[in-house]
């Protein structure tokens, strides 16, 4: 974890670590604890912090030094585990991949739970509906016939075909940025479709038709309004909207 150390005053700053004194940043955090009150409120915290640190570092400073009851999920702290998706200045991001300097720390930085999932406490939401949608698209390789003794062969080109959608870390930043999902929690949402894409376009898989039928449902891909919120939100840089479009096209042409 990042424990900032200030460069010596006379030292020549190095690339990436230019001289930068601590600054005071206001974090405006959406608080909710049903054990205390049925209403959510905003609470401001003034945090002394190096702006090259992550929003997650600021949340930790608040939790560890000011208010231990502030509650959020986190684990790896570098954008791999998908625990800490939240709405930061109105946009879905991972707190551990967002540097404070990149989101204008001269103004208060707002932090809220992701939308469309039930808030359980502070920044923690109920992830079960999200994982249920994922499970519903059969997110596993389906094959028939005898297994080969060695590996199944797959050309580098065929492997490349679905590479982008294998990056998904199931953080729900995309799904909870989707206006269709906000209005109707029945919609599978972008993350589930991304993971269906990952298997539909895998040359080894034989259940593409089944997955397409699942997504042909009234709550399936056709609900997508191509707003690109999901693509903007994805912390892994997956072209989510493009993947959804490819699934739609596969449904029409039945070629994948």
């Amino acid at each position, binding site marked *: 974890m990042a424990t900032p150390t200030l460069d010596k005053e006379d030292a020549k700053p190095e690339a*990436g670590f230019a001289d930068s004194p601590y600054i005071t940043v206001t974090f405006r955090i959406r608080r909710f604890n*049903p054990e205390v009150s049925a209403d959510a409120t905003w609470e401001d915290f003034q945090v002394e912090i190096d702006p090259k640190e992550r929003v997650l570092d600021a949340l930790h400073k608040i939790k560890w030094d000011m208010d231990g009851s502030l*509650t959020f999920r986190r684990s*790896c702290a570098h954008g*791999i585990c998908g625990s800490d998706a939240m709405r930061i200045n109105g946009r879905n991001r991972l707190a551990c991949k967002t540097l404070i300097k990149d989101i204008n720390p001269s103004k208060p930085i707002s932090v809220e739970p992701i939308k469309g999932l039930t808030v359980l406490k502070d920044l923690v939401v109920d992830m079960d509906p999200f994982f249920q949608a994922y499970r519903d698209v059969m997110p596993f390789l389906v094959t028939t016939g005898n297994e080969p003794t060695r590996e199944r062969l797959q050309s580098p080109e065929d492997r490349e075909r679905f590479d982008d959608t294998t990056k998904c870390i199931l953080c729900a930043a995309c799904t909870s940025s989707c206006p269709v999902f906000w209005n109707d929690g029945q919609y599978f949402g972008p993350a589930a479709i991304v993971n269906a894409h990952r298997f539909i376009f*895998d040359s080894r898989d034989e259940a593409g038709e089944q997955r397409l039928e699942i997504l042909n449902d009234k709550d399936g891909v056709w609900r997508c309004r191509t707003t690109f919120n999901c693509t903007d939100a994805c912390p892994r840089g997956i072209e989510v909207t493009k993947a959804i479009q490819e699934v739609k096209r596969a449904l029409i042409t039945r070629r994948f």
Partner: protein
Amino acid sequence: MKIHKYDTVIVGAGGAGMRAAIEATKRSRTAVLTKLYPTRSHTGAAQGGMAAALANVEEDNWEWHTFDTIKGGDYLVDQDAAEILAKEAIDAVLDLEKMGLPFGRTPKGEIDQRRFGGHSRNHGEAPVRRACYSGDRTGHMILQTLYQNCIKEGVEFFNEFYVLDQLLVEVDGVKKSAGVVAYELATGEIHIFQAKAVVYASGGTGKFFKVTSNAHTLTGDGQAACYRRGLPLEDMEFFQFHPTGIWRMGILLTEGARGEGGILRNKDGERFMEKYAPVMKDLASRDVVSRSIYTEIREGRGCGPEGDHVYLDLTHLPPEQLDAKLPDITEFARTYLGIEPYTDPIPIQPTAHYAMGGIPTNVEGEVLADNTTVVPGLYAAGEVACVSVHGANRLGTNSLLDINVFGKRAGVAAAEYSAKNDFVELPENAEELVVSQVERLRDASGNERVAELRKELQETMDANVMVFRTEQTIKTAVEKIAELRERYLNVSIQDKGRRFNTDLLEAIELGNLLDLAEVMAQSALARKESRGGHYREDFPNRDDVNFMRHTMAYREVGDDGTESIRLDYKPVVQTRYQPMERKY
């Protein structure tokens, strides 16, 4: 309080836990208890690859892999276990491929392989391409693939259930596992899981260091639960410091970067690893490279205004290669350092990475109560366990392998055990220890803060028991840890609620870290030699006469309630390889 009954309970949903769950679910009624959602495990942070002598791209065989593993572990490896690891590696990779893992491919369509530290052709002649990979997110793909197959098999998960106690019951003079006690994060409720077999797969302990590649959640919970119930911990002094963590942050930059041709350079631009490891150079084993980096830094050849790091240079590699093979780590450099790896070298320093030691098991994953006695119904696999296939230093790509080979073995063995055996009756007041622990912390009004104690622990561990150790530094750590343990009794938390009380959880985790740090420091103090990841400046040589043996640490409680650590030793299993001087 709720009581649940399952044939098999698995603690942890990372690679080892889910690999075990896939096997156990097919054979027995199984529950997986995990403090994080399954795909949040730190297995997902593993990058470079998984070793297996597939020989898809050049000549290789499992015997060479066995040798490399034993040599890499500085001969503290149990050789029978290493042989199993290397032999079963091939099926472990093929199993994953059949489960759907999208490995990188050769032009012929086979699984591609790359070079990695310490893996060599014909007993050290030259680096060999043995690591099967999926870009630089192999761990992520393993974790996703295993979770996907858990869904396929209908594995039952209890998410955000935190196991705090291991129930052991003496039946006819034999200590047996009766189940576990867990704390449900969402509600604060205590649950007892009665189980015929329990498998620990709860990961490492890296969070007792400050600069670490480990997740915040890697706090040795499984080790601590077993240790407190009188079970030993093996070889806890051996911790791996990965050479290339992002400077000051510790975020891992894969060894695969050097496997792809990356070079470590000091402030003069010199490729310093040529001096320390003439054959393997930048791909020597991790302990060797980490010590070399700190030697450069100590001798004034470190980079930056404070001379406290060196560079990982990828600038000579074509951008297309970086994009295709190392997309994640190059992005880390851009995100966290603002550095463009196409054109600028990346500042790095060694980062606390992996616990070689842990809960002792045999090759079936059965937990040992002493050097030879098995605890019926108790299993462990992955980083939480010590088989020992990693000895004094783990080779890169052998941990993703370990979780698959021994995760599978433990899952099969546990389920077969539950098929043949009955439940052990729960002890009276089985929840007592956990209830008192939770209530004490929730009601405490002392003036010590969890975050402050944790910070002091991490600082003393970094300063005193990292890459270089001496009797004096270790003693400093031992004293500091004792002070922190004393102060921990006065710790209080602010969140007094029941719902999602992560404040409470962090306090419990700190207690685990303090217990395990003490074991580590005491084990390190007693090992008066240098071997693998344990380097004593006051005893710079390996001493096979006195220390070719595993450390076994036991918690002892005196009649007056005072706690102490008793150290014992266990012989190393040697089959076909005689210890030699280790050169790379």
